């Protein structure tokens, strides 16, 4: 089976249609803040109530989510509901709209509440999305400390500095 085309706008739209509460984090959130690094998956942190996870389960069903593994890149079909989603703290999924990673407590954070209190509320291609701040994305990548994170951190830190300088001096050059 060919890798499904990555359609992040549609994926976010499906989540919104199902009323799922989450914070977008990771490389795609960094792109929204200006990161130059291309990514082909969505990382999100769901709010952990059973009601929300029930809505998430329905959204995953609508996207035909399967469990991704290196040996089964097309994904392994799985049955799920709110309780079973809550039982696993990190999910690597492949859907008909591309790769989707769910983490209840991304590295360096304590989860949804920690990230949601400072998240920025944006409208992306007509869909309302809560996006983790760049400072929180950096915090998580620094804690994860994978090689791929270390490579992007210098530019993300410069971006954060530029954005904060811009906030303090709106007319300054970047």
């Amino acid at each position, binding site marked *: 089976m060919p890798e499904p*085309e*990555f359609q*992040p*706008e549609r994926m976010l739209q499906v989540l919104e249609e199902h009323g799922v509460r989450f914070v977008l984090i990771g490389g*795609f959130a960094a*792109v*929204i*803040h*200006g*990161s*130059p*690094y*291309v*990514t*082909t998956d969505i990382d999100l942190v769901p709010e952990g109530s059973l009601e929300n996870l029930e809505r998430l389960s329905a959204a995953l069903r609508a996207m035909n989510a399967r469990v991704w593994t290196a040996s089964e890149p097309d994904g392994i079909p799985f049955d799920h509901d709110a309780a079973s989603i809550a039982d696993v703290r990190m999910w690597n999924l492949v859907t008909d709209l591309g790769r989707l990673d769910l983490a209840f407590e991304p590295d*360096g*954070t*304590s989860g949804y509440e*920690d990230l949601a209190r400072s998240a920025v509320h*944006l*409208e*992306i*291609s007509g869909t309302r999305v809560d*996006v983790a701040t760049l*400072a*929180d994305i*950096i*915090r998580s990548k*620094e*804690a994860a400390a994978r090689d791929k994170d270390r490579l992007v951190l*210098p*530019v993300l*830190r*410069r*971006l*954060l*500095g*530029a*954005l*904060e300088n811009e906030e*303090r001096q709106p007319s300054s050059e*970047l």
Partner: protein
Amino acid sequence: MRGGQIVREARRRAGLTQRELAERAGTTQSAIARIERGATEPAYDRVRSLVAACGFELVPRIAPRDDSDWSVATANLRLSPDARVRQHQAAVRFARKGREALAGARA
């Protein structure tokens, strides 16, 4: 990068409030707040001691300066978030077509 950004990152990574960090570091919550928002710029040793109070070690590193990715990032900053997503999607689609063309050429 400002010292206050490092302190804020370490504090939040440790799950501490500003008041809790202040108690550990023998200072006041308002002093921590001033540092984090950039109202005062702490000396390097001060940043290092606050990071240590969060349970971490500040490890300085000198690396070659590389502005190639930064130039793209600064161009991105002039776009709206919506435009950044569209540009990213165009890059992903172009890369996919390139991979497909390469696979076709190899077949």
